[in-house]
């Protein structure tokens, strides 16, 4: 008993009145939040409902029916994280964990080229040093900064998530982790559902810890399933009720007629809202029918970020 209380005393004096060691006050957290910019999705409407983009230190789950553009959004984010700080981005690298084999390098190259084009366009607008910029940002550089992992079973997936801690400590400029999709290896042939729940909630906690400790953006892409609720079959995200509590934010992508829409289903600070978006040859962009003039995501981002200092 004496040894136990002695070790508590060694842990250092309590900061402030009876508070917990290592805790931060809400005031400090408020100011810290301002220091971490969000990652743009290149679609202005989508960024608006997200409060500027996908937030750091949080786990965001994005789910939708096949073909709605989840992987497209994942690739877009892996590229947008690399937008240099001068242009209002994070200037970081990306980790892309592919469980289904849906990552297409050619598509990533196409999106990277479009992103650079957009940046040069606004580089011209702001009269930045064009030459230096062109030398630095080449589509190959962008592809180099995406760390790609392919996992083929759930044990590999869990092992990789456990390993990420060490990997990210060695590669401090990684700013986003995308898992596409987090569901795949847990859906089929899983006999012991109780084990599945335990593994998934453990994995969710580890991802939360990664997001918090390294100030990362974590994006998990999820599939949908049908569920019998209130007398009818409805589409819900896969992996069940316990998993739905394992993310900080949730965005659901769905079809509305011929248009793709995104809906904020869960967030501690954002209002529930929908916004349309489209998948073009340049990547994720504003829905064509919605905007009067087509303004690319990067231009909007730069003007709003740099303008406000």
């Amino acid at each position: 008993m004496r040894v136990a209380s002695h070790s508590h005393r060694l842990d250092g004096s309590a900061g402030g009145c009876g508070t917990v060691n290592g805790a931060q006050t809400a005031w400090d957290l408020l100011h810290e939040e301002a220091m971490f910019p969000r990652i743009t999705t290149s679609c202005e409407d989508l960024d608006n409902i997200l409060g500027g983009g996908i937030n750091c230190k949080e786990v965001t789950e994005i789910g939708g029916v096949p073909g709605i553009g989840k992987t497209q959004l994942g690739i877009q984010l892996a590229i947008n994280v690399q937008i240099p700080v001068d242009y209002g981005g994070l200037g970081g690298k990306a980790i892309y964990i592919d469980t289904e084999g849906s990552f297409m390098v050619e598509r990533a190259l196409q999106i990277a080229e479009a992103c650079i084009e957009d940046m040069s366009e606004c580089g011209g607008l702001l009269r930045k040093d064009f030459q230096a910029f062109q030398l630095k940002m080449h589509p190959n550089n962008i592809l180099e900064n995406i760390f790609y992992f392919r996992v083929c079973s759930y044990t590999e997936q869990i092992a990789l998530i456990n390993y990420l801690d060490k990997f990210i400590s060695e590669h401090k400029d990684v700013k986003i982790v995308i898992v596409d999709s987090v569901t795949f290896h847990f859906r089929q042939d899983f006999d012991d559902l109780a084990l599945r729940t335990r593994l998934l909630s453990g994995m969710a906690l580890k991802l939360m810890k990664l997001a918090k400790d390294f100030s990362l953006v974590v994006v998990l892409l999820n599939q949908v399933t049908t569920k019998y609720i209130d007398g009818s079959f409805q589409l819900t995200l896969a992996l069940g009720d316990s998993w739905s509590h394992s993310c900080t934010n949730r965005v659901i992508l769905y079809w509305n007629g011929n248009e793709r829409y995104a809906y904020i289903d869960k967030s501690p600070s954002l209002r529930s809202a929908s916004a349309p978006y489209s998948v073009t040859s340049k990547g994720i962009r504003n829905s064509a029918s919605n905007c009067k003039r087509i303004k690319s995501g990067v231009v909007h981002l730069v003007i709003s970020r740099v303008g406000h200092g």
Partner: protein
Amino acid sequence: MAPLKSLEQEYPILDSNFQSFCASHDIFSVEDLLLHDLYVLAAFAEQESSSERLKQGIAQVLSIIDGQHQPWLNGIELLEDAQRNKHVLSTGCEGIDLLLHGGLRVGQLTELVGPSSSGKTQVCLLAASNVAKKHIGSVVYLDTGNSFSPQRVTQFICQHSDPAIDQAKHRTLQKVMNNISCKSVFDIFTMFDVLHQLEFNLRSQMQGGDCKVQLLIVDSVSSMVTPILGGSGSQGHALMISAGYLLKKLAHEHNIAVLVTNHTVGGDGGISKPALGESWKSIPHVRLLLSCDHGGSICNVSILKHPSMAVGKAARFMIHN
């Protein structure tokens, strides 16, 4: 159990003479002493030369043991304690306050259960802002899902005030926000660590003034317990129950209201039930079920368990944006 000789340093009366007397009766540790018939031991002590010291030694060990548990209280003392210390903290949400006859009761563990996006975190943030602002007490917020949003807390604090920002307002906001401390915990062992630290800090510090911890929020306790519950061993189950008891102990001994959140899982016939199972059901004093209309801002709350109110009583409330 502690061997008797380890107590010698602090209590010199338990010297080697006492220890050898005890050893001659096969008593080497505190446990042995408790198991032994004390009247018989005292009678043997009478026959020794240093009988007074030996009997004092026995009395000393018994008083050390007595100090390890809470003092006995009778009904009147409990009532006085309840009236003086165990007041009610308003959550800031009228519907819930009306339902609970005032709000969260200090000394009790209140649980919010609900499906995803039913407003549990919002109620926690609102309660934290309200207690920090109105009750002049501090709030400890343990967050497992990175859901603590300081912006939202700011919105709640500035809700009923004049929107014009000036120096005094800024300073008040800072003071109120400084009363809320937030720590991210991602596994149950860290939570135990944090709670033990908190207990130690509360015990060793002078209570009073602005700094008194009034509210402890754990959002959510189910995310920490689900990875370890079930499976082949029963350690997860034991850890969950100990965590519950530790929270209740903190609540009662240090006059704190504890608020935890839990999620729901599918049950028989497709009806959802609270997670964490049957054993956890008896741990919280008050259990409230939250549900929200999809996309709407009106939420329903109903009582699942309460020490003094009927189950099924419900209310509606709205969280303003």
